[in-house]
């Protein structure tokens, strides 16, 4: 058992397209400024990663990652159903 509540008011999202690394994110909000869907809102605590308020609206273009000035602070992840497989050619047949 942890001190986390077992019941959350928010519905579990169908995917988490954006993952922040809180240690690397400076809270500059460049990702918020460029996102064409506008799925983020700024964190109320200055310097902290933005909040992904509308994850289902993500178009998965990756502009937020492309403009991020802090390498590794933000990453994009396709939903599980859209993750593609590859194999070493040598392992075929």
């Amino acid at each position: 058992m942890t001190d986390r509540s077992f019941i959350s008011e928010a519905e579990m999202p169908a995917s988490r397209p954006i993952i922040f690394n809180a240690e690397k994110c400076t809270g500059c909000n460049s990702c918020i400024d460029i996102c064409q869907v506008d799925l983020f809102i700024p964190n109320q605590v200055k310097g902290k990663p933005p909040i992904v308020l509308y994850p289902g609206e993500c178009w998965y273009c990756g502009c937020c990652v492309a403009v991020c000035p802090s390498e590794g602070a933000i990453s994009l992840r396709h939903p599980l159903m859209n993750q593609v497989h590859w194999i070493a050619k040598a392992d075929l047949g």
Partner: protein
Amino acid sequence: MHNFEWPYPLEWDSEETSTADILVLGGGIAGCMAAISSARRGQSVVLVEKAATKMSGAGGSGCDHWESAATNPCSGLSPEELTQAMLDDNDGFNNGISHYIECREGYDRLLDIEGMGGKIRDTEDEFKGAAFRDDESKLMFAYDYRNRITLRIWGTTFKPAMYKEMKRLGVKIIDRVMVSSLLTEDGKQGGLCVGATGIHTRTGKFYVFRAKASIMCLSRPARIWLFSSDYTGLCEFRPPQCIGDGHAMGWRAGAEFTMMEKSVVAEFSAAGRSYPPYGAGNNHNTWYGASIIDSEGKEIPYTDRDGNILRSFEERFLPAKGQKFFLKGGSVDYPKYNYEGPETVPFAKMISQGYKLPFYADLSGMPETERKVIWGMMVGEEGKTKIPVYENYRKAGFDPEKHVLQCYGEGWTSASFLPQERQLFGLPGGFLNNWELQTNIEGLYVAGDSLYASNCYGHAAATGYYAGRHASKYASANGLADIRLEQVSTEKKRVYAPIHNNPENSIGWKELNMGIAKTMQNYCGEIKRDELLKIGLLRLQEYENKIIPETFAYNPHELVRLLEVFDILTVSQIILHSCLARKTSSKALCFNRGDENMYKKGEEMLITIKQINNQVITGERELCFFGDLKENYEKYNRDYKEGTYYDR
């Protein structure tokens, strides 16, 4: 339940007015080029964009192809030859005017964008000596290496370059504002266009725009048949906020449309039925020419249009014996024999010949330049590939020299849709235009995806720039007309109504969108019948009258999403009316009637549709109403100097 406080100031009901010579609606490729063109002609320009102009719109995050650049120095085709082929390939159901502009001026726009800072050449000689490269100009081509009409481009550099150029030219860019309506003289449908209104997506502030001429550069409609509440952003190929607001507001203002009855079985979206565009194994568009192998490593041959197996790799990029050129690209799904290019053996045949599933795209054995141009350039520059595919796969260990990427389904789409899951793709319907790219509404010009039978990046850029020229001419000769305050206040009431409703028992935007999508699948699916289309229309009218008044939004963002769905509802009705007006099946329009024996088949015509006094009026136009392409183009563009791309 919302756990966060809205972070932006709420400015419901407050109003801001902007006035300019030219108003550009939408800041995608067409909108930016329209603004640049107008500003270079000395016009004051306001551009309104729902997102952030710098990287927004369908082409904002990149593009790897520029099609139909028939005037580039390596082209083997004339603009007339290429446009005629595009018309012929669609039995005439294509926009002769806009595609001729694309063919004739597209290359000028590329040079123009290069001047702004976009990359269009292999300046680092990375692909020196490659079969697809012209070593003198350093331009790189795709598909047909003999005729060289489609260029490979570094499209991620384009939009930021256009943005910078607009700033330099003093274009007033208003981001994060959804355009919600057009304003017309005396508030009348079909009257002179005098401006538009908008709403801020973060603050809810109301905007009034006044201009001498306006240029409609908003997207094509989407989410008519396809919806997923969990993956709204993945419902269609284009970005989720690009849903056809322009078509809806144009309809309400009395604009005339054509080809709105055309829809195709969905081929490209990802809401559960397909994979990330160009992120799965395939051999089309971005991946054209890639080798495909089966699960035992056996290569699937490419054939020419007659089914002859191609022995060499180079032949994948050459016309067949006796064929001058072939067509491939965004809107060429099933080309006629005349224009058919090399393809891998059809799926069913491969299975019957004993090839084993699944198939894989295999770049490992290809010439190095061909492998690198697909994986690293095309996959990298194309819209949604740089970070989500190229970078992420690389980080996860994908090595194109060693690994093969799995294909899903049976074609380039890596997708599998039901027949009633449709979308407006492959030259869909839109605003009807004349040779000035003006609509039937005086002072309202149109470009890019708003146009009927629009397609790709080059088409958007070329028509945007062209519309800017002609709108500027109009604005120079005409004054600013008055807006009707009553029209503004009626619109204000419409857009704000949902926030005054009671959230308890209300309907949200997702529920309404899903209701529309299911209605369209049921009543306007693969096979059209009058009785079903009519019931569909009744259902949508019920939504309009009974459901819209019950909708609710918590904040400006959700209100904009809701207003978008209102627009989806409007567009769905245009589609149903248009389907009712077309009485017999049409292959070119992918339009199938189940009850056509009731009607006599007449000559193939364009069906036009608009509203006058809120009554739906349909009509007909000849397929080639635009007349001789070259002659008319030159008549209307005497002042345009070709080749002088930077005509400030």
